[in-house]
């Protein structure tokens, strides 16, 4: 029995497991990752869900901050493993029904010019925020993402030590909505920012703490990129680095139980009954509910802790997606004629024109309604990377926030309803896109919240961020104060993943941070 004993067993083949496993491999530990799905990479998924030959990103579709990430450098996730990226010059465009649009460019000057068309004052504010807070984000926020929370003092202390830090912190703690109200006058600028809060960033506009996301969007120089071939290519790169460093992966291996003896995690039991020993540690990259309630079992947990784990709040929303296999790329002819930037945008947003309409969307989502004031995000990756479709063909995808459960329905009712909602979303898309005719569409497919929750079981209730991003569940509180340092009440068991700090605000943050903690616990003398 080759597989029976390991130094470390990692549960879930997400980016954080790959990062942590690679550091462990470099330190000489013998590790295995058990993944319940066939494909690695969790949300780094790219699949042929419409027609063979057309690749669609079914969750993550772009990636920020690669240049600022120490993990890329330390683990050689670069050309050594053939990672390649495309960097669109226009990051996003927000379209209005009257043909106008506002765009955020990679170039600050171009962004300011686009904003100035709506409000010269707001352009000036944006410029000032970018200049003042760029260094704060680079020197304080990003480093805080790449260390266990609470190390090197609290974030407040460090912010208070830098120029402008106090005001930054005050703005960061506001809700996104209050932050933009305080900073800007134009609804176009406010909606450009607020429309990005749910997808891709995981915040409701009225959640406290969303202000930080606004500041990051303006001053963070996040440089979103598309991985060559699709998001899953990143998972392949991570996997190669991990295996090259001695790591092993077992796909379609469901962990049923984490074995606990005398309060210590000693191994796992797989669904087919096999039991594997972990000599040094067990690490869970799945959601805390599955880790503790399902796999460890309440009999090994303090009653209060079990109750708090069950009370971790999921996102208030899930996602509905439409994927198209196309003959011609999506065009927004009316908007492109007025500003060609729209034709070069990585993502195109439309639907809301005012903050009030976004607020209405949140009311609708919270009352279990498929939003009438929908906020839609469209991408056409083949404009930048033709390899994601057959020659002279294209793919496009649409993402919108929706409730996990529609009022009066069961989650599985999505299966029956999804075609109707797909047509509804397409009709909204056609209000802006000028060539999405039936003749142009070779095939279409919808992904609904029930499907997302079933396919990525750790995204309980279709909650992409697993633990809702509110102050009570962020930084040193993520997802609970007693789990924020990656250690858990069970000795030898560690919790990483999107539910822990820094919530995938940066790639593989919790994997790298947990390595610092585990390295200390295992008394490993390595850098």
């Amino acid at each position, binding site marked *: 029995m080759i597989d029976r004993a390991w130094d470390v067993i990692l549960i879930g083949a997400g980016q954080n497991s790959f990062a942590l496993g690679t550091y462990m491999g470099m330190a000489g530990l013998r590790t295995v990752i058990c993944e319940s799905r066939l494909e*690695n990479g969790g949300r780094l998924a790219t699949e042929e869900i419409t027609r063979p030959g057309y690749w669609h990103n079914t969750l993550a579709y772009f990636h920020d901050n690669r240049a600022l990430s120490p993990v890329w450098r330390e683990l050689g996730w670069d050309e050594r493993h*053939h990672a390649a990226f495309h960097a669109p010059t226009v990051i996003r465009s927000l379209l209005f029904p009257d043909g106008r649009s506002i765009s955020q460019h990679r170039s600050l000057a171009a962004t300011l010019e686009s904003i100035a068309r709506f409000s010269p004052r707001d352009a000036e504010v944006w410029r000032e925020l970018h200049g003042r807070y760029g260094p704060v984000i680079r020197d304080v926020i990003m480093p805080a993402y790449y260390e266990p929370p609470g190390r090197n003092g609290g974030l407040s202390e460090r912010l208070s030590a830098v120029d402008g830090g106090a005001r930054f912190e005050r703005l960061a703690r506001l809700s996104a909505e209050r932050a933009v109200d305080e900073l800007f006058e134009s609804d176009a600028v406010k909606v450009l920012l607020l429309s990005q809060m749910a997808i891709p960033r995981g915040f409701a506009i009225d959640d406290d703490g969303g202000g930080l996301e606004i500041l990051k969007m303006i001053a963070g120089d996040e440089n979103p990129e598309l991985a060559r071939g699709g998001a899953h290519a990143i998972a*392949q790169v991570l*996997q190669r680095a991990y*295996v090259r460093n001695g790591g092993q992966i077992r796909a*379609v291996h469901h962990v049923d139980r984490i074995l606990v003896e005398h309060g210590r995690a000693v191994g796992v039991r797989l*669904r087919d009954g096999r039991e594997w020993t972990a000599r040094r540690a067990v690490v869970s990259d799945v959601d805390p509910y599955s880790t503790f309630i399902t796999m460890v079992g309440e009999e090994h947990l303090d009653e209060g802790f079990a109750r708090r784990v069950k009370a971790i709040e999921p996102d208030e929303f899930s996602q509905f997606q439409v994927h198209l296999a196309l003959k011609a790329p999506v065009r927004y002819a009316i908007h492109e004629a007025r500003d060609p930037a729209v034709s070069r945008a990585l993502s195109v947003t439309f639907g809301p024109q005012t903050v009030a309409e976004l607020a209405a969307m949140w009311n609708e989502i919270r009352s279990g309604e498929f939003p009438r004031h929908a906020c839609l995000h469209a991408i056409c990756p083949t404009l930048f990377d033709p390899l994601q479709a057959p020659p002279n063909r294209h793919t496009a995808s649409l993402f919108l926030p929706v409730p996990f459960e529609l009022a009066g329905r069961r989650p599985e009712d999505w299966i029956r309803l999804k075609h109707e909602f797909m047509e509804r979303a397409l009709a909204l898309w056609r209000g802006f896109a000028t060539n999405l005719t039936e003749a142009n569409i070779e095939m279409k497919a919808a992904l609904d919240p029930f499907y997302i929750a079933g396919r990525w079981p750790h995204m309980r209730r279709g909650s992409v961020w697993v633990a809702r991003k509110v102050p009570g569940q962020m930084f040193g509180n993520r997802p609970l104060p007693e789990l924020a340092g990656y250690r858990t009440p069970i000795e030898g068991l560690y919790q990483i993943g999107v539910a822990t700090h820094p919530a995938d605000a940066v790639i593989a943050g919790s994997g790298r941070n947990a390595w610092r903690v585990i390295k200390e616990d295992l008394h490993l003398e390595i850098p």
Partner: protein
Amino acid sequence: MAKIFEYDGIVIGAGHNGMICAGYLGKSGQRVVVVEKNMEVGGGLDSHEDRNYPGFWHNIHSVFHRGLLMLPWYKDLQLEHFGIHYYRPDPGVVHHFLDKTCLGWFADVHRTVESISRFSQRDAATFMELWTRWQPVVRHIVFPETYAVPVPFEEKKPLLEKIPEGREYLKYFETTPEEFVLEHFEHPRVRAFIAFLGVMRGYELDAPKTGYLIPAMIAWGVNPQLCRGTSHALGDNLAHMMSHNGVDYIEATGVERILVESNRATGVVLEDGTVIKAAKFIASSVNPVETFIRLVGRENLEPEFADMAAGFRFSKTTPIFAVNLALNEPPKYITEEAYPEVAGAFMHIVGLDTYDDLRGLFEDCRSGQLPRKPFMNGASPSVHDPTQAPPGKATAFMWQLAPYNLWGNPLNWDEARDAWFQKQLAVWQRFAPNLDDQNILSTDSTTPLDIERHDTNMRYGDWMVGEYSGDQALENRPFPGWSQYKTPIEGLYLCGSSCHPGGNITGA
């Protein structure tokens, strides 16, 4: 700015053959990179999740792996180290008939013979006799030949004539599978059973010099096995094996062309402009038409060779139409009542009654018509490997051999898909009546055109990657005179299914 990389060698295509080739090279210390145009490695080892219900995995066109654990590369490359596991259900095959009788192929030859004897005592005796007589032929000739560089017939003939196994092999070498089956077996159902199993692995009924494959199959056994965690798990594990052996690979980016300088292959240019230089070799696992006509280019080839490459034939009878189901419970066959062992069988054959049905199907495939009489083979993988479906649920599929060029144009499949799906399902339901609306959660289908869309190496939906018949078999594969995996371009080698020994998961 195009990036430039330098390696000792490049392997084009991360199908199982390309990966195994790269694994050996990496293990021997060569710096190798594999270039794959799809996002997923594995080529035909392709599995995907049901589009409506998560947690159900469908294996698209490779399920029945044969005796993998005894293959040389499996041991050489220590694949057990990467977690591969195979299930070996018994019986391997059950062929059902509407009168609730069935034929079975078991691990124990005596049970197979007993099952045949229910239809024909004479056929049962013939089967047993062939099984016995061909044991040494398989062990000493057929199996080693599969894993060796093919030897020209004129050279091997005198050697074979010296030994009894060799004379036995030669006796049937010139025949076709059809001739062999009709000559040796009498019962229409037994003929259909043996001939279908013989050709379903990508061979032709009437191809000369392949008749010996039938007694070889009888002696070797059909013995289909199921890869734990779907067929794609084998592809993934081969990728891990490559990484472990220091091999790099690039996904989602195909080769645009092979660089040739003074008749030597020196590197490749990828579709995104990336250049990779190869100091020693390039091995292409894609078919000869792609390799020579598209990647090397006629300008670098002698006209006769280019014409020969362009004329490489693809099979018209290997493409399949697949029906995939997500189920509450696995199919329950009408034969189970009388033969309880059917419940644990792996491959199920339904709708095939006589040898003439098979011949009719081959005619239909070649003339581009929908099969006049549907008959299929399939399985319920989750019965043997519960991880392929959510707890308590099931997956099942049925494959129909079908033409690629339907009514003269493969695009017709996009129109014909739904109606044909219903027809195929209706036949299956007669044999497994519990496949009703209550049981079926979700359905999915793959046409011969979809096979090519997913993997353009399987041109015309031919997963055998080249018709397997006399002038494209053994030492003539892919071309007479070019079976040594070498090519007219120095430093360029072929290593895919278009070479000896052909398609299927042989990894040779």
